[in-house]
């Protein structure tokens, strides 16, 4: 079918949220690992921060990233009328 302006807007918003979440992912993964030595100078709940992030913090943020994406996209689907309804 022919896509409308609204459809393109939906896709664009999807790209934006994907990009933002990907940036967060990149920071807590690669930037964090790159500066792990420096981060370890900071203490957090008794943990050196660099160690804490790699062992738990970044992992928890991954879970949140996916949760936010699922929540936001469900909302966006409904807003733009591309949701699958309650049929399935």
């Amino acid at each position, binding site marked *: *079918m022919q*896509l409308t302006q609204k*459809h393109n807007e*939906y*896709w664009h918003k*999807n790209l934006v949220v*994907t990009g933002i*979440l*990907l940036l967060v*992912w990149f920071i807590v*993964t*690669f930037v964090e*690992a*790159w500066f*792990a*030595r420096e981060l*370890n100078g900071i203490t*957090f*709940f*008794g*943990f*050196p921060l*660099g*160690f*804490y992030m*790699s*062992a*738990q913090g*970044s*992992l*928890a943020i*991954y*879970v949140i*990233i*996916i*949760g936010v*994406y*699922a929540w936001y*996209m*469900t909302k966006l*689907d409904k807003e733009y009328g*591309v*949701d*699958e*309804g*309650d*049929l*399935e």
Partner: protein
Amino acid sequence: MNQATSHSAFKSQLKKYYTFYAGGFIGFVILLAIAEQMGMSKQWIGYWFLFATIGLYAGIGIMSRTSEVSEYYVAGRRVPAFFNGMATGADWMSAASFIGMAGTLFLGGFDGLAWVMGWTGGYCLVALFLAPYLRKFGQFTIPDFLAERYGGNIVRSIGVVSAITCSFVYVVAQIYGVGLITSRFTGLEFGVGVFVGLGGILVCSMLGGMKAVTWTQVAQYIILIIAYLTPVVWLGTKHTGIPIPQIAYGYTLQKVGDLEKKINADPKELEVRKIFTDRAAAGKAALADPDKSYAAGKTKLEEGLTAAKASNNATQVASAEKALAGYPKDVAAAKAAWTRDTGLAGRAAPVRPHAQPFPGATEAAQNTARLNFIGIVFCMMFGTAALPHILMRYYTTPSVQEARVSVFWSLFFIFLLYFTAPCLAVLAKFDMYTNLVGSSFASLPAWAAAWAKVDPGLLNITDFNGDGIVQWAEVVIGGDLIVLATPEIAGLPYVVSGLVAAGGLAAALSTADGLLLTIANALSHDLYYKMIDPSASTTKRVTLSKVLLIFVAGTAAYVTSLKPGDILFLVGAAFSLAASAFPPLVMGVFWKRANKWGAITGMAAGLAICVYYMVTRYPFFGINMPLWFGLSPVSAGMFGLPLGVVTIGIVSLLTAPPSKEVQELVEHVRYPHLKGDAVVSEAR
């Protein structure tokens, strides 16, 4: 009754079943605990866990048997997000995660965290780039998507080859784990253990395909997570006083750091480490001229014996005789012993602080270590996001929206284990630093004495300096010990050890199930149905898949029985290779202009450079060319993935854009629901 209510009725029924099941399992463990108190032997506890759980999985398999195509390949596409998350968790967490992970962290400290990050962060890529779009596409396998998007059998073939290669390498590692666990906890022989486990895998996946595997994996997840958390929580409560040790172990980590400083300064530890340095140096010197050193060493001992006899001291004579009897029988044996001694140099190094990242004497060495850390994280993440047995699971949810939510639950359930493993490593280290180091050889902690006797490969304690006290430098630990011995370290009854074994078995079996199914489906669906005989009836396809499953399982078991060497490298290699399938999958959705030739050359180039780098750099192949940027061959995907992306881009732009139908397909997968869609996704 309309579909929505039937779906929610199905969901609540599932919840009821699995709550009942989890309660039943806990009851079963309690019953065994009581039986243990009443005197049931360890071996019988092992048998009960082994046969009860395998019997249970087989039972689920038999109850879910099916010959219908969509039930067999994608579980009828009605697995709710929550349960698909659990199944993915079990599918994902292998014997290596369950048993090996905490050990890797124990031995490697911070550096081991690269695996933890890589194997969880990959799910962000699955969620953002793949799961919803593949679900909307809604067919049966990953090569299906590549073939439909790019057109033609060449792309499908590359997809099939890559899916089968990485799944097969991975399944061998799983079956190895099955054999190891069954033989350790029941005393059955390794080979017998492999086939008992294989029986469990086959009954389940063969009768019911994806449907049976899904419901079994949910059951297996419940067992494996209970088994993993129970001993850690117990040990953590003992050391931190808080039943959520994952939060509280920061202070334990500080204490570990203090103890490491103490160990590094302890004169007795220094003495042992000096013994290692000296023996390594002596071994090296002796190896320079083995024949002469052998003769000299022997003469010296013989002279010692003569002198002792002359002095008429009985104890001196005895010890001199013993020394002479222990001397190598010939030069070859002596050479082997000296080579072993030179290896001791590695143990002469001081303890590296657990939380310290990137070891290295110089700044440059540290930066190389950092690059390798990042390389592993990178390859494991993109490899995760391209492993077919995981991606396939997202075909089984009822809708695109549920597929997204399901990735959330998947990572949540995986996270529960992965954020516990680093905690377990620290707690175990603290326990050993305080209770094992400094204890006397005459009264070692009970678990240490037991494991050192059972398997010197896992725990070896030798009194090198002869002071009768354990120094940390005298202890050698195999990584797998940490998870296997934790129940005993925590002072829990044997039934918990049996539980841990059942958990490890569940982890290995569930992953093997998913992998075998992926391979059999790639062969029966992609190769046979789509490429050889498109008119094959559905019954024929499903039957063929079942036959292939037995054949593949048999082959994998045979390869396993040969005990191929470095499994960690194989697994790492599988991920790096899988990562080369990531660019065409993602670019297929996000870039309409990507075309057939781009995909073919991109995948081929990515795979080629990975294989080239591994073959020319990994020591096994004996070529050993210099490394690029000091990056180890396991992280070959660091080169393969970017090259794949660039190649797809350039070649696609140089050749004709894809047809209008393909562009419409891309639009189709981008939106969860478009008018006129229903016909397409339901008809197949």
